[in-house]
């Protein structure tokens, strides 16, 4: 499965990893991989109003070779599953996976007894790093997910966390 430990680089020591981590966290290139309704919210996040560019993540690369994050935005059907696996393989390390929306987390509104078509959740076959609930999640939720991933990459959170008053 996809969680075997990858060999570390030839030269790696703690401060270097911190510096590289900071660089990677603030320039996450997501893959254009919109499946369904969450893809439209992903596009809205990339557009002018919610502006993912403030966090360095607005470059949506179509080819898996050039991206760091696979944002699974939508329902994964059984016919699409092999394609998702192939795309995940073709992404170079270090790579992360964000499961955006209920469909990618647990199959969402399309889970009913007798369902024959969808895979109930991306974590059935992908090592998911950040889960963003919502159907579809608001663009702010996707941005919070990106910040969550940045915290996971660098170890500390640079942006203030939203507190409910």
């Amino acid at each position: 499965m996809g969680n075997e430990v990858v060999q570390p680089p030839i030269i790696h020591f703690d401060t270097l990893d911190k510096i590289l981590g900071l660089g990677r966290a603030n320039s996450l290139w997501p893959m254009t991989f919109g499946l369904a309704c969450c893809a439209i919210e992903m596009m809205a996040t990339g557009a002018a109003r919610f502006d993912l560019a403030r966090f360095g993540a607005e470059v949506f690369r179509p080819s898996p070779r050039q991206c760091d994050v696979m944002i699974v935005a939508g329902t994964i059907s059984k016919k699409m599953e092999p394609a998702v696996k192939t795309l995940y393989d073709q992404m170079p390390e270090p790579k992360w996976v964000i499961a955006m929306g209920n469909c990618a987390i647990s199959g969402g509104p399309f889970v009913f007894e007798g369902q024959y078509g969808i895979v109930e959740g991306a974590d059935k076959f992908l090592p998911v790093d950040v889960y963003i609930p919502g159907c579809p999640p608001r663009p702010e939720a996707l941005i919070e997910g990106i910040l969550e991933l940045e915290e996971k990459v660098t170890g500390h959170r640079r942006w203030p966390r939203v507190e409910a008053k």
Partner: protein
Amino acid sequence: MNGLLQQDVNQETFTLNLGPQHPATHGVLRVKLVMDGEYIVEAEPVLGYIHRMHEKMGENRTWVKFLPNCGRMDYLSALSYNHGYVAAVERAAGIEVPERAEYLRVITVELNRISSHLLWFGAFVLDLGGFTPLLYAFDDREFILDLLESVTGSRLTYCYFRFGGVYNDIDDAFIAGTREFIKKQRKRMPMYDALVTKNIILIKRLKEIGPISKDMAIRYGATGPVARGSGINYDVRKNEPYSVYPEFDFDVPVYEEGDSMARYMVRMDEIEQSMRIIEQALDKLPEGDIKPKKAVKLVKPEKGDYYHAVEAARGSFGVRLVSDGTNTAYRLKLRSPTYSNLSLYGEATKGMLLPDALALMGSLDLVIPEIDR
């Protein structure tokens, strides 16, 4: 050399996957292209990568429980799908809808149609290479999404209609916001016209590209802007009047050329027509309640099958429901417009250049989960 270009396929053809993950397909549509160099010998769309079993769910959920599904089929003009399903069940069960509720339905559906056309406009010009119009179009669209969110509660996958009416009334802020949006959008459209429509690059990319004849539209059942771009004056709101559409005067833009430019122009003119409808609807908005007096508790349509079609942003969306008198559907068929619009893709792109085939696909305005259902 001249003979060389027009010769039949004699060198090897190769198969290219315009696959499920491709920026031009705006979703998970795969097109298997057999290519002769830059020319397409045969294009065969492969569907099913986002088949979400809506029709199977129609059979094991009660009529009311199926409502959230309507917003998740075509999430760009989700309210038209709410309208199609709710109107079909109302026709089957004989439920009356108060006047004000009909007006609210028309206003929100037309706003949703404008937001869908705006997103199509941004994505289509993005396919042809221009990135900036997408940002402008999304900016306008956010305006509509705020308005609709204040009434329906969600941005994209609406579940606003109920059997016999709508569940939330609009307030003055919504009416003022809508009028303000229309004023702002009327100033914005000339800018799109000048910058994009009259842009020589766009005209060169779209004129005479992907011709769809009237006969092809008949054999494939293409409806909506794709048919109106080929000279067919068919708009469900006019040909098969439903709800309160007969009370508004709006005209249906029809272009004869049948190429991608015609389909582009039809959608751009429809934005203006929808704004006219909204203005008239806001002026003539009657008072009254928005739900039937006696709340519709249990929906049990008569035995038999019923059909109801509405004009969604992409064509005529029809709901055929076969009910056996219980409170769940015996069979629920959803006739999706882009399914028929895309079925002519194989015949329309024979011998075409690949970039032109992508321009044609963009002009068909596809939403893949609505095709796969």
